[in-house]
């Protein structure tokens, strides 16, 4: 029986067209995004695309697609068949390639072929696009927009880039827009000579020239003069991308573990979404320990186990029973050692479970839906693994 939260996640994925999966690094965001996609394709149906940033090679293998890149590829039905599942819909995957994404933007917005080639050939272009104004974040949003606008998918799930700050992602389109409207850009793109002539007396430019050297400023200026020609297209597009984030069809899923730092970041992110009128659909708490570990009856059982482990009659009996399962059969003292280890180490796990429960309570208020996913006993290496994880989600 699915839990109420799992039903709610299934409804969320059925109702929304774009899902942005975010959260701090190391929480299993990429895997959760893929599991959501696989499970949605299998049970909700429709054409589901998972756009991922930097999948582990094993994940690519898991999806049965070997390498995948900027272009979407379909996860073959055989990969689902191997897991004993006939999906109701289709699962597609693509990877976010920032460099290719920028080149594509330049191609689209450059007013003519000459300018396009000049920008693409500019030595500063690559350097700047790979570092400039949270470039990955903007390209991720841009790709989401593009894929959604293509009308080819019922659901696009995007695994967001690891940001230094989660807000960078949300603010990337706005920053892009602001950048093109900034006085700095206008100043940089004033022809260099006249700038020197008219503005040389102003302290800012003096300082900038002294610190950075005029040649460097000139190089930058040349690049931005080229770039500015693309302004109208870029600004209009950034506005559309920005709108997409607050669109009714868009929702966010935050992935966190119950460790201190990711949980802190998750709460911060949830508040940031709320203040920007962006919809937080669900919070996924990944790699949580089962609630049963916290039960006082379990601690009691561990204590009892510790006590009975010293009972000679019991260990002798268990040692005898083990004959069929382990060769050579366990000795009573081996049984005792293992039972004691199990019992004593249970308390370590229970402390972690209690720590997790505290953080879970702190996070409970921030999201309408909270689902827990366990630590998987093996690394996920096939669709079956993704579907198994996905079954905890919806």
């Amino acid at each position, binding site marked *: 029986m699915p839990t109420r939260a799992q039903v709610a996640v299934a409804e969320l994925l059925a109702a929304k067209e774009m899902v942005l999966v975010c959260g701090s690094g190391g929480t299993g965001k990429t895997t959760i995004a893929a599991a959501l996609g696989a499970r949605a394709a299998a049970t909700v149906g429709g054409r589901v695309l998972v756009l991922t940033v930097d999948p582990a090679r094993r994940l690519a293998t898991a999806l049965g697609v070997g390498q995948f890149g900027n272009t979407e590829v379909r996860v073959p039905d055989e990969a689902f068949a191997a897991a004993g599942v006939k999906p109701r819909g289709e699962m597609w995957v693509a990877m976010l390639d920032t460099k290719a994404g920028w080149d594509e933007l330049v191609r689209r917005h450059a007013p003519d072929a000459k300018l396009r080639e000049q920008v693409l050939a500019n030595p500063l272009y690559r350097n700047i696009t790979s570092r400039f104004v949270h470039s990955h974040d903007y390209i991720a949003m841009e790709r989401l927009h593009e894929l959604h606008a293509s009308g080819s998918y019922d659901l696009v799930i995007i695994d967001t880039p690891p940001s230094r700050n989660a807000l960078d992602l949300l603010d990337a389109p706005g920053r892009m827009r602001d*950048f093109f409207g900034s006085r700095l850009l206008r100043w940089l793109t004033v022809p260099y000579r006249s700038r020197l002539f008219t503005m040389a007396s102003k302290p800012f430019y003096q*300082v900038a020239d002294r610190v950075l050297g005029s040649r*460097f400023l000139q190089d930058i200026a040349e690049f931005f003069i080229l770039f500015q020609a693309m302004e109208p297209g870029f600004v209009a597009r950034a506005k559309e991308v920005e709108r997409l984030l607050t669109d009714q069809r868009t929702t966010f899923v935050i992935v966190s573990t119950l460790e201190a730092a990711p949980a802190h970041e998750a709460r911060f992110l949830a508040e940031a979404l709320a203040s920007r009128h962006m919809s937080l659909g669900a919070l996924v708490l990944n790699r949580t320990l089962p609630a*049963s570990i916290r039960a006082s009856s379990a601690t009691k059982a561990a204590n009892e186990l510790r006590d009975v482990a010293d009972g000679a009659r019991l260990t002798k009996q268990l040692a005898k*029973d083990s004959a069929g399962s382990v060769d050579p059969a366990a000795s009573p003292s081996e049984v005792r050692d293992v039972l004691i280890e199990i019992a004593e180490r249970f308390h370590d796990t229970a402390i972690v479970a209690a720590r997790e429960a505290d953080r879970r309570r702190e996070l409970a208020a921030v999201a309408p839906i909270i689902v827990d996913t366990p630590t998987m006993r093996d690394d996920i290496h096939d669709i079956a693994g993704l579907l198994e994880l996905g079954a905890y989600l919806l």
Partner: protein
Amino acid sequence: MPGLLDRSLLFVTGKGGVGKTTVAAALAESAVRQGRRTLVCEMDAKGALANAFDVGDLEFEPTEIRPDLFAMAMNTEDSLREYLRLFVRIPFVGRIGPLARTFDFVADAAPGVKEILAVGKLCYEVRERHYDLVVVDAEASGHIVAQIAAPSAIRELVQVGLVRDQTDWMIDILSDPARTGLVVVTTPEEMPVTETIELLDRVKVETSVDIAAVVANRVLPSLFSEREAEVFAALSKAIPQEELQAATSRQLATVFDAAELAEARWRIGSGHLARLRDALDDHLPMLFVPELFTKAVGRRVVAQVAESLEAELD
């Protein structure tokens, strides 16, 4: 090869969420215990370092949080002000108001400017010998190369000007293994280990900074020897049996499940650690910090991690 804490500048990096800040704080703590005047600096201003030390928000101006342990938060704008005051001799900081406002844009647009202001400040503290050791809670592994390679990158891009002149001494400090080292923190998990291996390759190719150590954080203890694991598997089958059920309460299955889970996590983790060790140069120290089974956060955790690191460094 100098001891880790005998260097003057340590950059601590790692994939987000692996405990980079805790390890940076613990290294600083250990250095202070060895009598070294230490500055620890948080680069991304998220406040994690302040949380680790249980102190209020950190500023650009270092706070002495206990004798000989200083902490600061990097802020490139303040760093720029300090730089202008020290090197360009612009006396009236107020007059750079418009500069500060547009600074973010220049810094975003001009590759390496923010990074060099940050790294420059750290190198400056080393050069002036204000501290025996500067520990940097640096950018996460995705951004660290851009940070530590900034002086070289700027050197290539900027042909003249003060900034270029300043890069030479920074590069001297950064490329001297007796003074500067990079510490990469990971956890025994797939992505952090893979990222660590990739990062080490990039650091070797793209920077001149010496890799000082790899720290494996939150390493789980092994429950069983191979033989014990077999006995455990046999006993697991015995849970439904009367002997155990009669002797304990019905939650026994949970206790066995927890052991199985812990064992599985340990097994997966050791696989990743073995893969990491194989990929590392033989001489590169790998330091193990165990998972802490405690409810504590902050200072207490830093102290425990510091103890583990000290034991590993001995």
